């Protein structure tokens, strides 16, 4: 199988990676770049544990081929905080007790962050709809939803 040379920006860092066609973005992040914050839950685009931002929008990285990402800008959980120590949604999920085993958490944070970018003041239904693709077996979702509401309040207070 031929290898494809791709150039991507991951968490603001330019990377050049050699990937076979059948390597998903998820596997490239974990296996080629040691960015193991992105998790493999189902390999079928159903659980959301592998959610990352691709050109600003959340995707299930198990449903994207690495070779399709030439020239793309990717943000993983490792880069969510940017220059800060924690993004607002990371602070609030810890404060609200929205993390137990932590396996769903990176994907949840990416999806929640993307929601607040496009809708800074979401109602409960909108939060639930935005997170429906991020399954959690531990928390029962209530604390996660509350943490998104608190992060929204924090961000609007910060102006």
């Amino acid at each position, binding site marked *: 199988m031929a290898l494809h040379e791709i150039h991507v920006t991951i968490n603001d860092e330019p990377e050049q990676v050699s990937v076979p066609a059948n390597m998903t973005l998820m596997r490239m992040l974990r296996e080629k770049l040691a960015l193991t914050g992105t998790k493999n839950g189902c390999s079928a685009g159903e659980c959301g544990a592998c959610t990352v931002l691709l050109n600003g929008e959340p995707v299930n990285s198990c*449903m994207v081929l690495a070779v399709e990402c030439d020239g793309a800008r990717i943000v993983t959980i490792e880069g969510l905080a940017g220059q800060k120590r924690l993004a607002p949604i990371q602070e609030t999920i810890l404060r609200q007790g929205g993390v137990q085993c932590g396996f769903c958490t990176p994907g949840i944070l990416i999806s929640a962050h993307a929601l607040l970018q496009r809708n800074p003041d979401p109602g409960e239904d909108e939060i639930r709809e935005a997170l429906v693709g991020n399954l959690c077996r531990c928390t029962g979702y209530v604390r996660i939803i509350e943490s998104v509401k608190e992060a929204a309040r924090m961000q609007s207070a910060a102006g």
Partner: protein
Amino acid sequence: MNTHPTLPEFDYLRPRTPAEASEFLSRHPGEARPFLGGTDVLVRMRDGFLTPRFLVDVKGLDGANDLRFDPKAGLTLGAAVSMNRVIASAEVRTHYPLLAEACRSVASYPLRTRATVVGNICNASPAGDSIGACLVLDGVLHVHGLHGLRQEELGSFFLGPGKTRLEAGDVVTALHLPLPPRGCAGVYLKLGRNQLSDLSIVGVTALGHPDSSCPSGYRFRLALASVAPVPFVPVAAERHLASHPITPESLREAAQLAADACSPIDDVRGSARYRRLMVRNLSATALAQVWGRLTG
């Protein structure tokens, strides 16, 4: 079923023109496949149901990413336009809200960043959520094949589960929806095992609009998901509503006709018997909702 997280080996190419794509696809019949969002194809490959030697990425072709509304001609959706873009489009929400509603019922936001309406159609699952809206809105596919461009009407496009009129060398470049009928109202009711994100047990698309050519004064269009080998149009139900005065009774009769006409199967999501009953109930609900909106 092989659910190992790695994909089987294949080669990937990205043709620059439809001619290049059609030429390559026709030279490798049965072993090359057009590739859009990948949200169905990759899963089927991982599970061993599809083993293409080549994936031909057609998202970069001219017009593939265009979403255009023409007030005289209607809506043109390039093949690569994602469902999230369709949902967010002001023109779709204004002129084809039924399509946005149907797309919104699919999976989840991250999945819809990649999933496409054209891909949903070409995957030809009877459960395809956006297909019903495209059927009742008289959608037409623009196809580029070995012999050039042609159009395929959706009404005759589906031949069986996962089977369409597309042949080796064919690439769907766009979906076109003509202008919606004046004064129409539509709804998509989806029954799943949960409130959001599941594949449908039953999906009912209903559209109605004033039509003086119908004895009843109204024309209703229906499409049913997950209850037949293909996305299914219960024609007898539609005819009933075209020819009988619209009353709660005639709407219920039409719902029963829809239930009688479909051919559901038992599967992991529901039994055939349950599905048939739900077609009756959800069709009645959908028709009543549409009628309520048509009559203010």
